[in-house]
């Protein structure tokens, strides 16, 4: 028995554990445990009141028994009793038992909550710590209800000890994770943000975890944390390795805190210029340190250092705005790809996958293709190989598609079973996406079926049929290739399906060659018939009837096959029915009728590849992002029209079912479900209202990103524009604190006073049409003294330059006292944007320089074009925009009286059309519009549901572009 160390007390427990360990068999162990359980039960039930110590010992034994994997059905009460003990160790064991064993037994929870309440109020830091731990461990809703209001107070109280602050922060975090609705935001949030400045690094670490989670849901509330986090990070990365004492881990200063701060920053876009410079320095320092020789040979040193490095790279990728950093990150990861540590190779592959989707680093990632292919072939660990396959998929484009697809096909032959299906999907998508000539595509898919037929799902072979049907240039080749593939003595059933379908449609294209004459085609297919499943046989029967139309000379043979007893009296009803119907059809219908009924299938509607949809389902949203976001090859849509980014809920029609087109067309659109109109916030939109889309209708374009129409008013109308003098971001100060509030006033209106102080008034008048706008700014000098060097300029922070073009005319450098000058701005929206441009005004007043930075009231909704539509269209589009990332929703309290007329005016001012008679609830508002930008159009649907009783609104936005949904939702939510 080992020497039981410090502070021991419970010898009985040690004896018991020893006994258990000495048991020779499972039976002996169970016997010993049952004896102990009986003993404990009798002690608990006995007449003699147990002292605290005994209670503690027995509770601890029960805990041990539970941890061995046995059920414990008593002792909870005794554990709860221990909570109110004044002895620390008894209390501690009580809490341990509760946090390990109690899930949510409501009766006990009340007693436990009482004990916790007492300990929280005890002002004894050790007791408070235990209580907070218990709350965090159980974390149930009942506990959140009881304490979620209390803990923020403990957290920010001035006299709370550091260790209690740490516990309180993490405890609150746990409650927020389980019951976010029960944690009220409030004044405490700003004080929590300031904990980032705390002297105690442990407090900072715990607070950063809390803030990161809260900021994800409430970015506005915590945005001041950005600059604090950056300066904290900056102090850490520049500190000498001994500065932080015990927070330095193997010569790496505060790695945990660094990782957490970098993660917090990933909740926000790149910060304002001043802060951004500092952050860039930090990131550069981290990248530089990776190149320095290690300060220790221990793996802990390199792990901690690289943990920070990988998190920094994640942030760089997340911001996706500094080409320099992105390329440096890529080079660093490239080094790791060949590192001897498997862990680093794994992480480098994973991280590079996200880098590949940035336009700045895509090319840099591609240079590592050989290393990655090599990893796919030689890595011994399947999880690493999986990462390599993911990366190849992400880095694929037209230049390397053939190489990557052939490597993946080769890998497929030996790939682990667990990941075969995914590889098959990926190959199928890449082959389609990057096919330059479709014969290559057909070859690739047939190879897929040959190599991994079992893993080729319906989506994949449906898709090849759709594509062959839609492109007549590949039909002959496809027929020839499947015919050859079917020659193999053993071919996969999926090959028979594809072969059967294609020959039934296009067999005539190869019938001229005597080697593939109609009778040869038929007997080849029929030789597979008896080995196939019912579904495949049903498909082949349809092929046969199509053959009768294509090749009248096969009619007698085929009729004989259909007439055979094995078909006409087949036990399977589907096969029997087909045989009977086809036989009759071929006998009674005239050649003309037959030709009409059995005509070649019409092209399938173009829509999102069902394979892509499947991959997304498999991997969660964002899986296909390398393909459908970012660097979308503009030419790819016309060549490979099959891959439409518009999502569709339509299921792929089964070729075997619809081969003859005899099945009924989809039912007409059902009227929108009108149930629950009395229920205020019922979501009728999720009901089965919309019908499946039947193909590219004129309206369909509404939701896809189109080539813009030629602007009605070309920019030439902007006579003699002075180029926007952009003084560079570092020259101007941050916007004044009220800038956001001022901006909000202009979201739904175009004219008014933008800013006023004792010296200056700035008025705005603006109008917008399509993607163009003109704005007049009026600067009024309110004093009697002349302003000198008066210079208002417009600045584009961040990427805005590429999103919005603003041309300004210069104004006179002097503004006389009491005078007003006017400045004209011409605005063109190039693509969707999230941050407004800044207006920087500088002048000298009485010798003192004045500077002022405002947000120019240009928000994305200004480029709205209202769209009227009928209820049915609205529902259909609403349904089409059903991907989670296309929707943004906010539930918020009304800040103004809830007046329907005012709301209407605001929504119209916002720019969307108001649609009447769409929502079954007349209280609700529904709107639609298109955001016009030069590069693309974004269709937007919105719905606002007021709840007068609760004084709340629910606002839902659906658009075809994810950031736009969120942004519009935020803009609009602040208006009510």
């Amino acid at each position, binding site marked *: 028995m080992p020497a039981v*160390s410090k502070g021991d007390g419970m010898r009985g427990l040690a004896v018991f554990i020893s006994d258990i360990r000495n048991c020779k068999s499972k039976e002996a162990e169970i016997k010993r445990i049952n004896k102990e359980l009986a003993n404990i039960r009798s002690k608990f039930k006995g007449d003699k009141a147990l002292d605290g110590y005994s209670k503690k010992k027995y509770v601890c034994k029960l805990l*041990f028994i539970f941890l061995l994997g046995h059920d414990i059905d008593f002792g909870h009460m005794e554990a709860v009793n221990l909570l109110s003990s004044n002895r620390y*160790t008894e209390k501690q064991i009580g809490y341990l038992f509760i946090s390990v064993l109690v899930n949510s037994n409501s009766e006990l929870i009340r007693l436990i909550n009482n004990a916790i309440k007492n300990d929280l109020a005890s002002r004894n830091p050790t007791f408070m710590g235990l209580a907070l731990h218990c709350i965090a461990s159980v974390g149930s809703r009942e506990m959140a209800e009881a304490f979620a209001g209390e803990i923020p107070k403990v957290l920010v109280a001035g006299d709370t000890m550091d260790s209690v602050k740490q516990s309180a922060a993490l405890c609150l975090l746990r409650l927020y*994770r389980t019951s976010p609705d029960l944690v009220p935001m409030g004044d405490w949030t700003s004080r929590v943000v300031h904990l980032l400045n705390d002297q105690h690094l442990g407090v900072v670490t*715990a607070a950063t975890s809390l803030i990161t989670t809260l900021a994800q849901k409430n970015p506005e509330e915590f945005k001041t944390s950005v600059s604090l986090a950056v300066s904290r990070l900056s102090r850490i990365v520049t500190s000498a390795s001994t500065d932080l004492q*015990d927070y330095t881990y193997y010569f790496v200063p505060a790695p945990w805190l660094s990782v957490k701060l970098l993660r917090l920053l990933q909740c926000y876009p790149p910060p304002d210029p001043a802060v951004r410079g500092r952050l860039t320095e930090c990131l550069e320092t981290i990248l530089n340190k990776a190149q320095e020789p290690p300060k220790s040979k221990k793996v802990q040193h390199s*792990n901690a250092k690289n943990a920070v490095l990988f998190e920094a790279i994640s942030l760089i990728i997340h911001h996706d705005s500094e080409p320099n950093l992105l390329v440096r990150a890529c080079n660093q990861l490239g080094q790791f790809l060949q590192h001897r540590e498997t862990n680093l*190779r794994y992480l480098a592959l994973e991280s590079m996958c996200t880098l590949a989707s940035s336009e700045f680093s895509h090319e840099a990632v591609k240079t590592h293709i050989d290393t990655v292919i090599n990893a796919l072939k030689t890595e011994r660990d399947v999880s690493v190989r999986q990462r390599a396959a993911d990366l190849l998929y992400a880095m694929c484009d037209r230049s390397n598609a053939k190489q990557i697809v052939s490597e993946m096909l080769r890998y497929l032959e030996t790939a682990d079973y667990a990941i075969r299906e995914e590889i098959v999907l990926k190959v199928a998508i890449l082959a389609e996406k990057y096919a330059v000539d479709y014969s290559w595509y057909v070859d690739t898919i047939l190879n897929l079926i040959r190599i991994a037929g079992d893993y080729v799902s319906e989506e994949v072979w449906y898709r090849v049929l759709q594509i062959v049907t839609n492109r007549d240039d590949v039909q002959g080749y496809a027929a020839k290739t499947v015919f050859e593939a079917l020659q193999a003595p053993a071919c996969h059933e999926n090959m028979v399906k594809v072969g059967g379908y294609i020959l039934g449609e296009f067999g005539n294209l190869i019938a001229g060659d005597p080697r593939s004459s109609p009778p040869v085609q038929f007997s080849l297919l029929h030789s597979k018939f008896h080995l196939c499943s019912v579904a495949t046989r049903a498909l082949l029967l349809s092929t046969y009837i199509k053959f009768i139309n294509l090749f009248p000379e096969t009619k007698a043979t085929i009729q004989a096959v259909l007439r055979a007893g094995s078909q006409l009296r087949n036990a399977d009803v589907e096969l029997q029915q087909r045989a009977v119907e086809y036989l009759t059809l071929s006998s009674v219908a005239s050649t003309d009728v037959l030709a009409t009924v059995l005509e070649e299938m019409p092209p399938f509607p173009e829509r999102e590849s069902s394979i892509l949809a499947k991959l997304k389902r498999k991997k969660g949203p964002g899986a296909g992002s390398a393909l459908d976001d970012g660097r979308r090859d503009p030419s790819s849509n016309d060549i490979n029209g099959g891959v439409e980014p518009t999502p569709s809920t339509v299921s792929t029609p089964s070729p075997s079912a619809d081969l003859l087109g005899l099945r009924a067309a989809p039912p007409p659109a059902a009227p929108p479900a009108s149930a629950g109109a009395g229920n205020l916030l019922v979501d009728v939109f999720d009901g089965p209202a919309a019908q499946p889309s039947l193909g590219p209708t004129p309206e369909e374009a509404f939701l896809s990103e189109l080539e813009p129409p030629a602007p009605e008013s070309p920019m030439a109308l902007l006579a003699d524009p002075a180029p926007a003098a952009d003084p560079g971001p570092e020259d101007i100060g941050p916007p004044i604190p009220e800038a956001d509030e001022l901006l909000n006033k202009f979201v739904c209106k175009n004219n008014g006073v933008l800013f006023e102080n004792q010296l200056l008034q700035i008025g705005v008048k603006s109008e917008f049409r399509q993607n163009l706008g003109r704005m007049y700014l009026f600067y009024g000098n309110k004093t009697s003294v002349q302003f000198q060097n008066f210079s208002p300029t417009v600045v584009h922070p961040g990427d805005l330059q590429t999103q919005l073009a603003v041309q300004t005319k210069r104004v006179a450098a002097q503004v006389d006292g009491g005078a007003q000058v006017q400045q004209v701005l011409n605005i063109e929206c190039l693509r969707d944007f999230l941050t407004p441009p800044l207006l920087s005004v500088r002048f000298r007043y009485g010798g003192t320089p004045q500077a002022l930075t405002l947000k120019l009231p240009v928000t994305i909704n200004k480029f709205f074009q209202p769209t009227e539509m009928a209820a049915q269209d609205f529902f259909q589009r609403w349904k089409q925009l059903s991907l989670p990332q296309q929707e943004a929703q906010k539930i918020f309290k009304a800040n103004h009286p809830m007046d329907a007329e005012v709301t209407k005016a605001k929504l119209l001012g916002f720019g969307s059309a108001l649609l009447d008679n769409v929502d079954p609830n007349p209280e609700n508002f529904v709107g639609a519009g298109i955001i016009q930008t030069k590069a693309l159009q974004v269709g937007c649907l919105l719905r606002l549901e007021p709840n007068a009783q609760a004084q709340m609104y629910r606002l839902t936005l659906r658009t075809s572009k994810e950031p736009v949904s969120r942004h519009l939702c935020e803009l609009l939510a602040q208006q009510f």
Partner: protein
Amino acid sequence: MSLGNIRQGKLRLQKWYLATSDKERKKMVRELMQVVLARKPKMCSFLEWRDLKVVYKRYASLYFCCAIEGQDNELITLELIHRYVELLDKYFGSVCELDIIFNFEKAYFILDEFLMGGDVQDTSKKSVLKAIEQADLLQEEDESPRSVLEEMGLA
């Protein structure tokens, strides 16, 4: 996130930071043990499991495992495990599996002092050990010595 020690299929310690039913817990532990015990040396310390990532490391006869979420940092989690092992080592003095078996409650207390709700509470070795030692002091103060006989219930 959960943290457990696994040895030849025996679980020495587990901590759950998400509400999970007992049945589900047992199932997950069984599954995780299978997956981790099947890993060969030199393989990478991270693997995708269900919709989580598992970070694990072997110390002598014990595997230490953490299940983390997709976007969490793997390497820092690996060092989280190491720091916990260091804390155990410092407290017990060259910790071995038996220490954890016989003093499982202490192993829990140290873990709780270090992690809370799945997040690291304090990364300083000194702070964590100070908290534990303080608790031990409290324990010694309020415990009057007992004889072995008394302990065995014979007195």
